[in-house]
């Protein structure tokens, strides 16, 4: 069984983001494996270990530097990697086409994981586009998955802690949510071992991606300014509570 995990090389969530030319960020910050993808890798490795002759393949589209993120996935237990090298930004419509092309040139997927979203673009849709292109069923925000030879039974989390349980025929696409597992971070020997694993490189232009009529393009990026000017509420607890109540009633008008 081949299990693919689509991973993304994203700026560290703690990084300071500087905007250049009004529409892109200064990439001179730490990049790492998208946090949700860590859950995806962890789960893929767990499933691989319950099936004979299975492998986990990490797939990524990005600049050459994104190989670091594939290496992180390999250190977390993936067996090999595919990097589609491209210096341009791609929307999720194009990204899904690229991921499909790289996967198709490599083998036959039984399961494809993604994270439920990336923390940079926050688009929340690549898994669905990938599923539609392959004609595979899709579930997102998955917090539990049981797989057998022909199907996956998954819990997809709704707000308020409720879940929907879906049965998907294989092959299928699964967007990993944070409740899925606790990622095990690699030890030093894991990292050493991962250096010997292979990362196959594709050049974006060589994949002959058929363009879509549809697109999403960033026309402007601006910092989200915080225009809040804090005012202190003072007094003992009951006075403060009374003042908060006044704010709720008169300023926010929520009661």
């Amino acid at each position: 069984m081949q299990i693919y995990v689509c991973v993304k090389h994203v700026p560290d969530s703690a990084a300071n983001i500087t905007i250049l030319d009004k529409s892109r960020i200064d990439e001179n910050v730490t990049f790492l494996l998208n946090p949700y993808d860590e859950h995806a890798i962890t789960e893929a490795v767990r499933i691989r270990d319950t099936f004979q002759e299975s492998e986990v393949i990490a797939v990524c589209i990005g600049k050459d530097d994104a190989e670091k993120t594939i290496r992180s996935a390999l250190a977390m237990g993936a067996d090999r990697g595919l990097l589609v090298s491209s210096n341009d930004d791609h929307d999720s419509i194009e990204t899904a086409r690229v991921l499909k092309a790289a996967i198709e040139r490599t083998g036959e997927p039984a399961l494809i994981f993604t994270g439920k979203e990336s923390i940079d673009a926050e688009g929340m849709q690549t898994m669905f586009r990938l599923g539609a292109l392959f004609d595979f069923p899709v579930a997102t925000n998955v917090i539990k998955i049981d797989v057998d030879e022909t199907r996956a039974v998954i819990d997809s989390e709704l707000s308020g802690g409720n879940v929907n349980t879906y049965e998907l025929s294989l092959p299928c696409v699964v967007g990993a949510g944070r409740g899925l597992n606790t990622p095990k971070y690699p030890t030093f020997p894991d990292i050493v071992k991962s250096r010997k694993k292979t990362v196959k490189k594709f050049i974006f232009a060589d994949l002959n991606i058929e363009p879509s009529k549809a697109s999403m393009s960033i026309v402007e990026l601006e910092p989200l300014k915080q225009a809040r000017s804090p005012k202190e509420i003072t007094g003992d607890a009951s006075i403060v509570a009374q003042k908060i109540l006044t704010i709720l009633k008169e300023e926010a008008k929520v009661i």
Partner: protein
Amino acid sequence: MENIGIIIETDNGKIKETNFGMITLARDNKAETETELFAFVMDADVKVLKEDLESFGITKIVDISLAKEQQNNPVVRAKALINVIKEFNINTLFGLSTAMGKDLLPRIAAMLDAPLVMDCINVDLEQNFAKTSQYSGKTIATIKLSGDVLLFGIRPNTVAPVNIQIKTQTLAEMLKFDGEEFVSSSLRVVKSGETDKNININLAEADVIIAGGRGIQNRENFVILSQCAEKLNAAVGASRVAVDSGWVPYSMQVGQTGEKVSPKVYIACGISGSIQHFAGMKTSGIVIAINIDENAAIMSNCDYYVKADALNIILELTKLFNNG
């Protein structure tokens, strides 16, 4: 001629409040005066909803019927909506960026190979722009959508609902769409949790959120927040520390790897205010921070701050409701 479709989310047959902000956004944004505003209703008796929808400017209401056993299936819902889009020549589709929307809108966009921006905080239909947060809420991106049908997932509560004047209201045309034929063989619903009424009010849609962090110290103290929240009709949220410490489930987390929320009031109790936490609540209306540590980041990035033990304040707040 432009036709805007709006997917209406209902709860026990009633329209969820957050829909009205979305309709307001679509209505005030239409490029042409002859634009029709369609409401797509899948789970409720349209007759009951008609007046409310008309009062916000909806001109056509489409009652979409699905086979009963398929109603909770997101693939079936997506297929039905795609056919509705085609039948009524919809060029723009709005839906809420709620849990349901996140499982439905991308399915429709993917099947249509159409552009979609989720979690929009604003939309400009003249230029086909959507504004949404990117990079963990640190930036606002303006995204141009191109395609035959454009999809927008609207973050709940980002636009205040505004009725239209009674004299300009028109009676909405009632339409039917039979979607009984749609099925899905590759995705089957085993169990649908949507009908289980959870006591915790939906975080993403709540008007008021009381959120607890490290300063709340344990699971038992979160009950104090819940008791106050119940009185206020608020939802309880949590920082990552509180979730990772096992005091509350992950579904209550607000932040970059949790729920992104825009309540009218966000009361942060014992939360220091990391960048990642701000990523999830930055677009809130009024932020009230209660923290014993006046140097906590959130104290200088809020509208009101209180230097105190949050639990004492919350207990007093609950008391005010019990007495009044």
